[in-house]
């Protein structure tokens, strides 16, 4: 297992390098960073001066190498605009994003797994179909649209919840609901298919023939087996939620990593964008690895490698 873990960690590093190289190229090709750095009313001469001052006149590969060398020495650099250390900027905003992602995952699990079980226990009934419709809707509705609908209904019409900001737990209600809506369908459908598969196995049939109560059958025999892939998906979903909160954070003005990434992308602040990309890529890869390890520990039939 140790060899597999090591090789997966190496893959994580390779993913981070690839993501950062692609991100760097896309970011630098999408606008003129020197013009942004020089400011809104800068003259062409001042834009050129900013280009030289920040070394943006050097070839792109050289700029990337310079940044990578500093990264290898453990220095994420400073924001080109605010001069704040990037590591500090990310750490300051990490709690908000983590909070949002964890809340959304908990909501998805708490609603998604029972819904999936319910659908599996009543296949091809209205309950099953309704949960399928809910799953399709959750996956199909764009999060910015759902966010606005929730804002209009609960923030403007009913005035039950705050609309933007991250000052209190109440500020997380609408963003969590929006983010959870995208994570919930996958968990629900996987639970449903896992349960259906488990319910059709010989050992469940035998248990049922022995007269075991349906509730015990579900809880003790079917569910633990059905939940194995769900556990793996939940870990992957957490990675997705960490990286996928950009739109939700900007709509609800939550000052997390997503909003920081959005702002930094808009103005081409590449040390910040690069560091966030690497963080998200590493988080995603490591969470997937953790899920695999957890699965291997829980289910002796699974072996890593």
């Amino acid at each position, binding site marked *: 297992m140790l060899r597999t873990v090591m090789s997966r960690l190496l893959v994580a590093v390779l993913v981070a390098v690839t993501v950062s190289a692609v991100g760097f190229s896309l970011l630098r090709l999408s606008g003129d960073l020197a013009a942004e750095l020089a400011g809104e009313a800068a003259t062409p001469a*001042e834009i050129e001066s900013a280009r030289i*001052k920040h070394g943006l006149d050097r070839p792109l590969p050289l700029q990337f190498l310079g940044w990578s060398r500093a990264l290898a020495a453990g220095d994420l650099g400073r924001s080109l605009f605010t*001069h704040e250390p990037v590591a500090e900027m990310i750490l300051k905003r990490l709690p908000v994003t983590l909070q949002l992602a964890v809340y959304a995952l908990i909501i998805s699990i708490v609603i998604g797994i029972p819904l999936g079980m319910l659908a599996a226990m009543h296949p091809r009934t209205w309950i099953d179909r309704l949960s399928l419709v809910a799953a399709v809707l959750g996956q199909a509705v764009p999060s910015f649209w759902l966010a606005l609908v929730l804002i209009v209904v609960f923030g403007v019409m009913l005035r039950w919840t705050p609309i933007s900001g991250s000052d209190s737990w109440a500020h997380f209600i609408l963003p969590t609901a929006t983010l959870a809506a995208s994570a919930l369908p996958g968990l629900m459908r996987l639970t449903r298919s896992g349960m259906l598969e488990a319910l059709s196995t010989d050992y469940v049939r035998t248990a049922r023939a022995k007269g075991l109560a349906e509730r015990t059958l579900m809880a003790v025999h079917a569910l633990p087996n059905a939940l194995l892939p769900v556990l793996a998906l939940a870990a992957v979903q957490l990675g997705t939620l960490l990286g996928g909160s950009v739109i939700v954070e900007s709509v609800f*003005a939550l000052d997390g990593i997503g909003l920081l990434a959005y702002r930094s992308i808009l103005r081409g602040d590449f040390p910040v964008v690069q560091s966030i990309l690497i963080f998200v890529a590493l988080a995603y890869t490591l969470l997937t690895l953790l899920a695999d390890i957890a699965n291997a520990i829980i289910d002796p039939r699974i072996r890593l490698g």
Partner: protein
Amino acid sequence: MFTLRSVILALGLLLASDALAGKRSNTLEFAFQRETDFVDRIHTDSRESATLSSAIYDTLLYQDPASGQVTGLLARSWTWVDERTIDLDLREGVKFHNGDAFDADDVVYTVSFVIDPENKLRQQESSFLFVKAVEKRGPHKVRLTLSRAEPVAEFQLAARFLMWPAKYTQAQGHMIHATKPIGTGPYRAREVAPGRGITLTAFEGYFDGPKPKAKIPTVNIRIIPDLQTQVAELMAGRLDFAQDMPPDQAENLRVNPALRVLYGDTIRITFVSFDAAQRAGESALKDDRVRRAIAHAIDREAIASRLIGGGSKALLAQCHPAMNHCVQDLPRTPYDPAKARELLSQAGQTGLTLSFAASVDLKTVAEAIQGNLAQVGIRTRIETAPLPTWRRNFLDGKSQMSVLSWGGGGIYDASAALPVFFDMGNADYARDAEVADWIKQAGSTMDQARRAQLFRQALGRIAEKVYTVPLYTNTANYVMSAEVDYTPTRVDLPVLSQIGWK
């Protein structure tokens, strides 16, 4: 007896009660769409930093936001000793927010900092480096020596020459102004939370001067990037003041009795630039008659009144009419499609196709112009891009025809509108050496009569050769709670200390 409805209502009140805005809370909830890199206008220059700087700091001179006239602020008065020397008498009895007294040492420290090229400030050359040296001539007297004759020096001293407390800044380092700014302005910064917002409280010790004292005790500035979210916050009564809404959105909000939508004039203008110099390759735009035909084909009045609205006016010259030396009696090209067709026919350009670039925010204007040009038989391919990309292409000489806007740093002088686009540099698509020379001379002489003559020559030639089509004056909109009392000024950003309750 508890009902489900009452429980839900109570829960709703509990959840929503933490963000009540308005007169009752005596806190102005104010939205910024973007975070500013720095609070002070020395480190950066953006609309957000200008709004905050005018609240937290004071400049040496003050430009009245309504009239544009310059008066004394931290400098009570000033005297031009000669073309390159200004003596300033500083106001006495002024205190910084930390209790330090303001005097000549603060001016010497701050001015020395901003004119030191080693500090590499943004737009340092155009904003600060016309000052060569600063000298203390008494506890409340300083002398500025200029590096060149600068006819708009007074406007510049009223723009970014805000004063830092010398002792505090020396002890903490100049970057302290990013997180714990200390100035002499009508508001003090209580909390700066990067990414989230800034809370300002009224500075009780603010001196009696031309800048108004704070009217509202607390201003809570929140960063809300999404305009739809700002609209929702306004409608829910949790935001008191927002700005720069898309025009259609602002008009929709007018029907809400709890809100007011006001428009203000700005010094910013929008115009069409032609590649007369053929920098982007050979094209029909080399011919004066084609450029004139396009000018005749564009219905500027309709674009200003119907598309832009809010008091926008069609332009007659390549500068804002409120700017000094922006003469209006120039050769005109009124809306006349028949004349446009005639000119195109004379030039042998029937079935002309042009590429037309615009930044995303000016797409609707480009489309309106595209419609106008189609009526006289000119086809245009609109190429929109985000502002930074559009700007890079423009400066790289890739624009055949572009629509763009320019604010000129809020300086009320034709020299703020013209040099960038007529200096034979990257943004100059006319490349008329005489025009560039006239404008350069006007920017380096203090003789106002001579300047007037030079600008008249330059603007006359630009109009005669139709190097550009000046379109309209830009407006700014402000959406606020009906309880807010505010009169928009000509500066396209709100002056926080002028905002009060009704």
